[in-house]
């Protein structure tokens, strides 16, 4: 009975979405005012309103965030996040700040990566010391008080609910060491200058109201030589793929949002915010304006997602 209700509702919403999305897109082409007016998806709002709306979006999606990610991207978001950590190539002893990292996906991957690098390092070191006795070898395994090599990750998010979900996930998956959870705003980070080796923001920067402030804050908290990494949805150049992508985004995703999470509007916002985000080259220029050097980007999946990287030199 519940399933029947759900599918009927979905069909009605599907037809609704067709008309709604068409009108929204037409509306967006007119009247985008400058100044304190900003975009919230395809709507036009003030800065304050935008922050409020986004806060509410994440309040409502927090519990189903991971499930929705999996269903919307068919699980591919895991590959994207793996690619980000692989490009980071962190060495043990790295201090990572993961902003807008609510449910901890990047943080957990970072910990896994660093742990395996550390193990390999220790194995190599043992191999060199050929004439250790069995006892000394056993001792060296036990004495290893730093399986992460002193690496640490601080997860910072503006939404308490997202952090809560992340903490629970960490407990379930057994991550305890080297992990901290901090409530904070990317435009005004509660950290000192020159603190972190790497700053990452995965699928979070398009929700930030003033991206330039967030980039400046990123520059501030990074150590000299530190790296800025941003994983974000970006523009698809290929026209055929772009058509299919638009179709999928506007027709399927909000429906999924309603069916799985009971929240149409948040996922409509999500899709629209992706379209509003500046393309690869423009974002690269913004990063350079914040003071980063050697800024570059890598397209994943033809531009559906891009990893931007810059260094504080």
């Amino acid at each position, binding site marked *: 009975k519940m399933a029947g209700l759900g599918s009927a509702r979905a069909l009605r919403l599907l037809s609704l979405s067709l008309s709604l999305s068409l009108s929204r897109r037409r509306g967006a082409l007119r009247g985008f005012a400058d100044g304190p007016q900003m975009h919230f998806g395809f709507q036009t709002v003030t800065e304050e309103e935008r922050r409020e709306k986004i806060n509410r979006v994440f309040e409502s999606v927090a519990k189903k965030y991971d499930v929705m990610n999996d269903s919307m991207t068919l699980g591919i978001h895991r590959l994207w996040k793996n690619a980000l950590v692989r*490009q*980071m*190539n*962190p*060495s043990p*002893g*790295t201090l990572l700040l993961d902003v807008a990292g609510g449910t901890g996906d990047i943080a957990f991957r970072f910990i896994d990566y660093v742990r395996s690098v550390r193990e390999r390092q220790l194995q190599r070191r043992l191999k060199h010391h050929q004439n250790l006795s069995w006892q000394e070898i056993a001792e060296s395994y036990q004495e290893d008080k730093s399986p992460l090599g002193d690496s640490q990750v601080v997860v910072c998010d503006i939404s308490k609910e997202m952090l809560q979900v992340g903490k629970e996930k960490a407990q379930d998956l057994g991550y305890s060491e080297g992990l901290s959870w901090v409530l904070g705003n990317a435009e005004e980070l509660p950290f000192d200058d020159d603190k972190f*080796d*790497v700053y990452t923001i995965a699928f979070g920067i398009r929700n930030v109201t003033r991206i330039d402030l967030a980039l400046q804050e990123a*520059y501030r908290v*990074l*150590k*000299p*030589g*530190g*790296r800025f990494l941003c994983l974000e949805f970006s523009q698809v150049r290929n026209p055929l793929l772009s058509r299919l992508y638009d179709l999928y985004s506007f027709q399927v995703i909000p429906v999924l949002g309603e069916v799985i999470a009971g929240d149409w509007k948040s996922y409509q916002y999500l899709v629209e915010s992706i379209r509003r985000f500046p393309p690869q080259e423009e974002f690269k220029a913004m990063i*350079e304006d914040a*003071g980063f*050097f*050697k800024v570059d980007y890598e397209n994943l999946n033809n531009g559906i997602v891009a990893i931007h*990287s810059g*260094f*504080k*030199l």
Partner: protein
Amino acid sequence: VRWQLCPPQRPLQASAVLRRVSDEQKKEPFASSSQQQFNSQPADHQPEQEPQGPDPSYTGQGGQESEDYESEEQLQHRILTAALESVPEHGWTAEAIAEGAKTLGLSAAAAGMFQSDGSQLILHFVSQCNTKLSELLQQEQKLVEQGEAEKKPTDQFLRDAVEARLRMVIPYIEKWPQALSILLMPHNIPSSLSLLSSMIDDIWHYAGDQSTDINWYTRRAVLTGIYNTTELVMMQDSSPDFEDTWRFLENRVADAMKMGDTANQVQSTGEAIVQGLMGAAVTVSNAETSRALR
């Protein structure tokens, strides 16, 4: 086109690490020449970092002070040079580069600027060695010109040059086989090959080679062969101060010299034989003609 789209000046004072060029007693001309040899990155960034160009005497437009901060490439060279010290311990890897960055006071994350297989570190080292060799040969040539030294015979010159170059590898000899194998990887071959050939060319130039015919190619090919084989022998050599390697080198250079003489001998013998055959052919044809006429 891209140059015009960029704003005329990046906020250089925002840089945290890039130092002023005047602070360094640095080898700028060498840095830029080695850049051309293997820097595969586009020079797009250069205009952004140094809109006034690397020449310290240039003054910017509109009376702006020319703040000559080092470019990203120069910082990269500094990091790689610092990384060389960590190579005996970590090998030619991204870890060594991270250690190098740390000694300069940068975060280890700066190693992310380079490829993760360490090939840029090796190419940097090879390029540095080649530059040192050039300087050495140039100094020797100056001494000869000033009459303070004797001009060496070719085989001695080649031997000394190759030995000097190979000796630069000795501090890193344990990890050098790893470096050689990385240099042979397909994406590194263009760069490593160009570095090798320019080094060999340098040696021949200072040896006084002025050939303009096929000899130019054969000489370089022969010396490349000698250099590569000697390098491989050095990898496996365990004699004190690599005596076996230098003896091997001596023999190979001697062979090459002899081959040069032999080539001439073969050529003149060949010419003699051909003339003999021609003469015989003429005689036979004359005999046939005279018989026919009878």
